[in-house]
């Protein structure tokens, strides 16, 4: 096909159905996206009509209430404390599991696949849902949040720890085997030095994520700054809400910055 001095250069589709296949696939994609838009009630006029209300909301948030900071310090620090121990417990849970989830170190393929599925389940449930479960089980408070972050985080950490171990150079392990070195020493001197930078990077990335997550756990009563956010909105104190949001933003940005600095240092 050509347009004046221009020529369309396209590699013909290599599939069995040629251009017909490509057309059918494009049509199916469009239908699927349309279906998803209908289901989620995407509506441009609603967005347009909502703009004045959004503006009104923003105006009522201004200026943020600086006095509210006095009440916000404690729950903000509590969020940080929840994030730190959620991460630490996550590491403690992930460490013994991850060996079985690494293909090259797992004792058998059955154990490997089973462990992978366990980790998937832990990771598959959202932190908020886990927090709801733990609030119901052990009562309101930050410890429920710690457990929620620990379980979800362990699922992610275990998977990443295992994948780091799958990528190691196995030559040294052969040298350890030929020198008759036992499994514990092989791990400490052959595996750990190779995976430590990756593992630490993963832990700090998780800490960063947990700081972000811990700021919303309060919405379901699992401690931290999220509770203040929700209650200020319910009491229509939007200037307090604004202070809350700014505080959360500052925490998340700081966690992000520190975590990426530390991870760059380890590399």
């Amino acid at each position, binding site marked *: 096909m050509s347009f004046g001095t221009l020529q369309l250069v396209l590699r013909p589709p290599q599939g069995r159905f040629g251009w017909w296949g490509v057309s059918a696939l494009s049509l199916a994609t469009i239908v699927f996206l349309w279906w998803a838009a209908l289901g989620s009630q995407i509506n441009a006029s609603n967005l347009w009509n909502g703009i004045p209300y959004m503006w009104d909301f923003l105006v009522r948030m201004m200026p943020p209430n600086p006095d509210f900071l006095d009440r916000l310090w404690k729950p903000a620090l509590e969020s940080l404390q929840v994030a730190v121990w959620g991460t630490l417990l996550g590491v403690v849970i992930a460490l013994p599991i991850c060996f079985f989830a690494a293909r090259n170190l797992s004792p058998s393929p059955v154990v490997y696949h089973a462990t992978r599925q366990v980790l998937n389940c832990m990771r598959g449930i959202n932190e908020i849902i886990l927090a709801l479960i733990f609030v119901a089980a052990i009562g309101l408070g930050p410890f429920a949040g710690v457990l929620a972050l620990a379980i979800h985080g362990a699922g992610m950490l275990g998977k990443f720890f295992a994948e780091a171990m799958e990528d190691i*150079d196995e*030559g*040294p392990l*052969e*040298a*350890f*085997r*030929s*020198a*008759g*070195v*036992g499994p*514990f*020493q092989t791990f*400490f*001197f*052959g595996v750990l*030095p*190779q995976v*430590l930078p990756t593992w630490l990077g993963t832990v700090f990335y998780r800490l960063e994520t947990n700081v972000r997550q811990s700021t919303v756990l309060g919405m379901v009563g699992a401690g931290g700054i999220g509770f203040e956010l929700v209650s200020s909105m319910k009491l229509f104190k939007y200037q307090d809400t604004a202070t809350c949001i700014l505080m959360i933003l500052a925490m998340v940005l700081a966690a992000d910055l520190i975590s990426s600095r530390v991870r760059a240092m380890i590399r």
Partner: protein
Amino acid sequence: MIKIEGLKKSYVGRPVLQGIDLTVKAGEFLVVLGPSGAGKSTLLRCINGLVQPDAGRTVIDGTVFDAKRSVRGERPVAMIFQHHNLVKRLSVLKNVLVGRMAGLSSFLSMLQLFPRRDVDIAMECLTRVELAHKANARGDQLSGGEQQRVGIARALAQQPAVILCDEPVASLDPKTSRVVLGYLKAICKEEGIAVICNLHQVDYAVEFGERIVGLSGGKVIFDDTPDQLTSEIVHQIYPGLEDPGISRVLKPRPVAQPVLASPFIATATA
């Protein structure tokens, strides 16, 4: 004295070793020659139990060697690898201590505590390859040749009866290769340790080997001193080899030895 008796190994029906018998004396430098895929690596790995042989055994000074059950700390078979297999982020000294680790407590070594005697042995081995001054360097701060010398020190730290070398100089330049093989030969002679060394360079085999074993099709087809190695045998070991340079490193056979060419003939043919 190391006796290898009737080693057989096949991978999914493909025979790799078809009954290998070898005897190596203490302090003997034995070179195994053979093309890639001839089973050189498998032979070494069957000797030390990294690979479970289908049949055969290794007898060291009258005792059958069992890779799984050894007297505490006694590891009479050590190994050196083509890619040195050091732990890159570990110090040189700790890499050498790996050779002692089989006999040490897991708990204490986890705390980075090692018996002074074993540290001394490791340092002596490092001195032996002239790298004592690099003891606290990290494995990956060393050059390729130095890393392989640490590999030698690690093997030596086991205080073995035999050191198996799997293509120890295959990824080194010619100058470094000679240095590394030189250290190996010296250790073999001075410590009275038997060395079984896989090589694919015929010239190094002739220069460093006291005895050469040619491997082809999973069988020993040559087992003698280097001066008995003829270009016919080299061609049997490496079928289809077209390298006129090979014959230069071999001693000419007495029969084929040309009569000393006189200047007269030389000018006549010129």
